[in-house]
């Protein structure tokens, strides 16, 4: 890439890039962002938003517990949630079921609330959808 071709399309961060100067020598330059890359990130975030919305719909119709919604919102999967909370994967999977979720005690719920950085009450309240 030539130095004058370095993209300057307003991204979130200034990237340092290796570029070729007019004499053919390598040097570095700062790029203000590249539209191609910004758009790739947009696609990833659109996917996340879509999955989060789908999870919310599942919670509202009583097919999944609130943990599913917060998990998707935090771009996590069962493995990551298990690693952060200290539960086993199979336990997290069970907690995704509304029937199991409503019988969870506060101590367990608190672990999830802490992970998702929400109040315990918020988590509980959302669980009332399916009830």
């Amino acid at each position, binding site marked *: *890439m030539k130095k004058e071709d370095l993209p300057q399309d307003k991204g*979130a*961060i*200034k*990237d*340092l*890039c*290796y*570029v*070729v100067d007019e004499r053919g*020598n*390598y040097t*570095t330059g*700062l*790029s203000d962002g*590249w*539209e*191609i*890359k910004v*758009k*790739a*990130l947009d*696609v*990833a*975030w659109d*996917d996340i938003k879509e999955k989060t919305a789908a999870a919310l719909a599942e919670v509202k119709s009583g097919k999944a517990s609130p943990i599913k919604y917060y998990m998707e919102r935090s*771009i*996590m999967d069962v*493995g*990551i949630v298990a*690693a*952060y909370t200290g539960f086993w994967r199979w336990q997290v999977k069970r907690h995704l079921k509304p029937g199991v979720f409503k019988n969870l005690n506060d101590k367990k719920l608190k672990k999830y609330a802490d992970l998702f950085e929400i109040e315990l009450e918020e988590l509980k309240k959302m669980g009332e959808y399916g009830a």
Partner: protein
Amino acid sequence: MELSFNHVQSAHCENGVTRNLLNHIGIEQMTEPLAFGIGSGLFFIYIPFVKINNGPAISYRTMPGMIFNRACKSLQVPLLRKKFNSEEAAKAYLDEAIASGTPVGCQVGVYYLPYFPREYRFHFNAHNLVIYGKENDEYLVSDPVMEHVTRLNAFDLNRVRFSKGFLAPKGQLYYPKEHKTVSDDLVRKAILTGMKRNIRHMLHAHVPILGVDGIRFTAHRIRKWKSKLGDKAARSYLAQLVRMQEEIGTGGGGFRFIYAAFLQESSAYFPEKGLVGISEQFTKSGDLWRSVAVQAAGIYKGRLGGQQDYDHLSQMMMEIADIEGNAFRNLSKTLK
């Protein structure tokens, strides 16, 4: 306390940490391209049965941690690398190292990294930065992909050092154990070792998903993405292909450009080996990776989307595989 530490921004985090830490202990010759080249950083791998964020697992560079390890080993710098089971022990160890005057490299996850822009914060756990001091409850941070030094409080630093998921850092830290200078002869030897190892990885891995063969393997797969996954998922896959190529700082085909810069710098150590010409081949490959990103973006932005557009993308990657294959074969010949 604040240690004297020279923060220089780099294209890629591990290169930057390696360069900055080795400069700090007295190895003046170290630059980002040299760190990348000596560490045999250039790579390609596509793991077909693993998914990351529901997309393909692709990497354009070597395993995390290897660049630093190899650079130290080749330059005969004793290093320390340590993981922790306990968060308290990890904090105590770091505090002690800083107190004794040693800047420390840390592997961290970016999901909870507060100074990173929100849109980059996925559960990516192989980011690297240097802690070079502490003031009250705040750690002084040299993150090589940032323009300027920054700070993290103890809570945030602990959280990113113990982020969870794939490649969880487990508080991992590393640093060169002693100050030393190295001769140009040793640098020359390190460069040769790095090049030979990189040739081996890219040309003779004997596994179809690695190196130049891996690029061809991926090119074949991409042809089938549209019919196999459907338009929507195929678009997400392509965005991920570009995102992995575009890790923060590396820009389109960025690793190829860094390798080209490495060969150009190496030609000063080996003027007789015609490395400048081979460097140009990697520049060409980097430019083509950029074109791949543009073509892929045409599809995920919805401007393109027919099977012929996927075929074209696949052809471009085949061409890249040929160029990189030839470049490494040329490099191999000139080293003999």
